């Protein structure tokens, strides 16, 4: 039995991480889920949210904005549309994105066909701010 699990974190533009870790938590379509070594084969949609993993005594946190996660043969592959470490997040940009999305939603109204896109943009911005906010409190 392996006591670690391989974690590969990939975005369309780059391979962010390919290492052995102890435990992973990610925002699945049916809620936050955790993955430990020797997890069953598994494929899920990811929502925009906070993803974290533990390696030894250190833990790392990232903001992801949707994608897929697969566990197969004790390797977890996360295909994220975007992923940033808490330390990398551009607070200014996330704040202005949140404001932009909020005003757009107010302007369009919930019936408009572009409303879901604006809502998704808002969620991504809020996730970034939350993940980055925890960094500031530490």
């Amino acid at each position, binding site marked *: 039995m392996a006591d670690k699990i391989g974690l590969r974190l990939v*975005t*369309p*533009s780059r*391979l962010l991480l390919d290492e052995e870790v102890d435990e992973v938590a990610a925002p699945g379509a049916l809620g936050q889920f955790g993955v430990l070594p020797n997890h069953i084969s*598994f*494929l899920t*949609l990811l929502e925009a949210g906070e993803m974290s993993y533990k390696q030894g005594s250190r833990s790392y946190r990232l903001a992801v904005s949707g994608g897929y996660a697969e566990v197969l043969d004790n390797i977890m592959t996360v*295909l994220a549309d975007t992923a940033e470490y808490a330390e990398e997040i551009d607070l200014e940009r996330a704040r202005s994105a949140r404001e932009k999305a909020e005003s757009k939603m107010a302007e369009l109204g919930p019936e408009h066909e572009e409303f879901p896109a604006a809502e998704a943009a808002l969620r991504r911005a809020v996730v970034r701010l939350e993940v980055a906010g925890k960094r500031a409190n530490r």
Partner: protein
Amino acid sequence: MATLKAIRKRIVSIRNTQQITKAMKMVSAAKLRRAQEAVVQARPYAEKVAALLKNLSARVAQEAHPLLMQREEKRVDLWLLTADRGLCGGYNANLIRAAEGFLRVHGREKEIQLAVVGRKGVDYFRRRRVEMIARYPNAWSRSMGELAAEIAEQMIGRFVRGETDGAYILYSRFRSALSQVPTLEKLVPAATAAEQREELPVEYLFEPDVRTLLASLLPKVVEVGIYRALLEAVASEHGARMTAMDSATTNAADMISSLTLQMNRARQASITRELMEIVSTAEALK
């Protein structure tokens, strides 16, 4: 016969051109490195998405999602990726020739709609009054991710609405700085690998379920295919420009050396003539 002054002027002018081509070559070399890096970095994601699709599509019938439907190809879309700018050797000409070839070969039995990315291709087909369903004359200054998403939306929309039975992309694959190959790929409908049904791992959990996953993954696969083609095209363009500018620089050097030879000859001739004049004048005064 060119005068000394005229030759000198030409040498100066060629030297200026040479400096420009040399600078362009260096800029292209730097951009090429970045573009190549981007191609390599994008590979793991594209491979994984393709593997997931294979795994998922083997579990459903082709009716499960519109993008899996294989229809008889009566009407197809051809998406052509050319550059916005010239001065890159035969890069654009090769792509346009390949597109013309496709239109000639398949144009008889199928109805082909053309969509063009890049100013050079757009200008070419507009001059020939060829109708285009989409035009992106200033594509390459934009973010490739956004551009890919936009193209994917159009491509998929047209297929799902039944306006076309398939979509192809024609782009330049990057082999090396010296070699870029026009390449044709079919992106829609997404290819399936239904023959691998037996090898599926049994214990596999899907969240929320196979169909939802597939519905989300299929457009993504198309988008990733476009994204990859865009990155390859960028690398090809810079490679082609670098090679073209390198040979232009060499040609300029050759011209300068042959003109310098001519100039020296002309100077020698004028000195000789002057000497002869002096000698003959002195002779006459005796």
